[in-house]
Structures are given as C-alpha cells and as structure tokens.
C-alpha cells in the first residue's frame, strides 16, 4: 500500500508537466493567448464609426457607407510592430478585392500618411482615431485587431494580433467565398 502511495507525487508532477506542455504548445502555435480578452461583439450589431478621414481633408469615414457589404475593419498604428508585419498580407487581401476599412489608432497623422505612402495603402478608407473614440467603442485593447462585419452589419469574427494566411483561412475566408470566387 505504501509503495503505490509513493508514486502519487510523481504522477501529480507528470500530470502537471503534461498540462503545461500542452498549453505552451498551444501558445507557441498561436492557438491560445492567455492575454486574449474574449470579445463581446460576435453576433452583435457593429458599433457605428464616424471618424475624420486620415487621407482626405474635411471628409469623414462612416461605417454606414458599408451597409450591405461584407467588410473588414482593421485597427492599426505606425507604433505597432505587428501592424508592420501584417501590412504585406493586407495589401494582398486588398488586391483580392477584400474591402478593408482602416482605423489609424493613437498615431501621429504625418507618420501614418508617410507609412501608407511608402508601404502602400490596403484600405478603402482610413479613419483617424487619436483619442481612442472608435477604439473604445469597439472594445479594442491592442493593435492590430481585425473584425469582420457581414452584410447585415453584424460582427462575425475578430482576430487580435497580426493577420496571417492561416488565420485568414480559418476565420475569415469563408465569408467571402460565397460572394466571389477566390483566385
């Protein structure tokens, strides 16, 4: 009886080690992020956006202009390294005809304009949000974040962090396949 008891700590250790290994693997693969905050918006109507246009003086960017379309909302800033990383992929998506509305969040206007000039502009329109007005309305807590809004104006998907092909295929691609053949 005592002999089998002696193994209990070892078993507990192995069980914990297994659990930690499993969770760390998930984190490494990007499938699990402990800092992720579950979004409150999936299945809910998209909050209204009404921001000054970054690139056009005296113009406003309004989400109401996108009603009836499936579109992406991408929150970014030139201060955010992951946004630089995902930029090429956003360019690729925009070439595929995916409408992306950008929100330049807490940024310097000149820096943002410069960034888009140099690296290309994947956005249909870019709203300028230096005071987090739209960001707070959308429950954004970091950049980049990407939302998908369907034709009824309902938020269907959200991804925190850079957008990569794998994430795109898993979460977003299906909403556009019905509309147009991809490639």
């Amino acid at each position, binding site marked *: 009886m005592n002999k089998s008891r002696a193994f209990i700590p070892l078993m507990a250790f192995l069980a914990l080690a297994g659990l930690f290994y499993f969770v760390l693997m998930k984190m490494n693969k990007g499938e699990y992020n402990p*800092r992720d*905050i*579950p*979004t*409150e918006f999936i299945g809910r109507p998209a909050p209204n956006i009404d921001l000054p246009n970054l690139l056009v003086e005296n113009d406003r960017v309004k989400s109401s202009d996108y009603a009836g379309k499936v579109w992406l909302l991408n929150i970014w800033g030139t201060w955010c390294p992951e946004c630089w990383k995902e930029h090429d992929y956003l360019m690729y998506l925009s070439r595929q005809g995916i409408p992306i509305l950008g929100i330049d969040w*807490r940024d310097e206007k000149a820096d943002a304009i410069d960034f888009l000039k140099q690296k290309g502009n994947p956005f249909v329109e870019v709203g300028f949000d230096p*005071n*987090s007005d739209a*960001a*707070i*309305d*959308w*429950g954004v*807590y*970091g950049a980049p974040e990407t939302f998908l809004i369907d034709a009824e104006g309902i938020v269907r998907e959200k991804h925190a962090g850079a957008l990569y092909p794998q994430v795109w295929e898993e979460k977003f691609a299906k909403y556009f396949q019905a509309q147009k053949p991809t490639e």
Partner: protein
Amino acid sequence: MRFIVRKITVLKALVLALGLSLGAQAPASIDTYEFSDPGQEALYLDLIQELRCLVCQNQNIADSNAELAQDLRRKTYEMVKKGENKDQIVEFMVARYGDFVMYSPPFKATTLMLWVGPVLIFVLAVAMLIRVIRRRPSSNDRLLSEEQRQRAEQLLNQTEEK
C-alpha cells in the same frame, strides 16, 4: 577622489530609491480633471479604481499610464461629467470589454469557479490535512516491541563501550 565619487554614487542611489518609493505612492494618473460636484469626483475616483487596464491587465486604470488607460480615464471623466451614474458607465465598459474590465468580476455562472474555486481548494486541503494527521500513529503507541527495545539498548551500549 575615488571616495568622493563613491559617495556621490551612493547619494544618487539613495535619492533614486527615495524618488522611486515616493513615485510608487503617488497615483500614476497625472490628468487634471476638474469637477464642480464632489459627488461626481468621488464617482470618478471610485470608477477608475474599479476598471481594469486592458493593456497591463493586472492594474486598474487609476494606476496605469498605458495610453489606453489614459483614454479610458478620459472617457470615464466625460461620462461622469455628463451626469451618467455608476451603473450606466459600468454597463458601457462591460458591453465593450466584457466582465474582465471590472477589477472585481461579478458573481455569476461564468465566473462561479473564479469565486468558489479557491474556497473549494482550501476546504479540500484542510480535509486532506486532517486525514493525514489522523493517520499518523499517536505518540502513545509503542514504536518498538519490548524485545526490539532491549536489543536496541544493547547495541547502543556496545558502541559506547568502544
């Protein structure tokens, strides 16, 4: 010369340490929000204590100087100024950031384990402790039989003689 240099470094370190400890006591928020109504001010101060900084996650927005925390403080200020009450502002934040935005999450089905878990583990631990203590042979029980005790004594005496 060298002594002086070292003295200065020590002094610097002391000043730095003092500054750090003072800094830690002062609130991180340096916003100068003004209230004409002390009730509103109290509500504002109460709310920024209770709302979590979503960036740092283990600080409230009163203690955090993350940019989002600054903006959330401003938002809170604006809403308080507009005359909205605590429930309205909390509801506004929770609708956007979920229960996580509250430093002390509400007691409901999804947060049940959060509240009950530690108590459960504690009760379990105490129960196990009691079991272990009960199983331990009491000191009245003889550990050795009379025969064994005599033999042990004999052995001990042998070593002493040597």
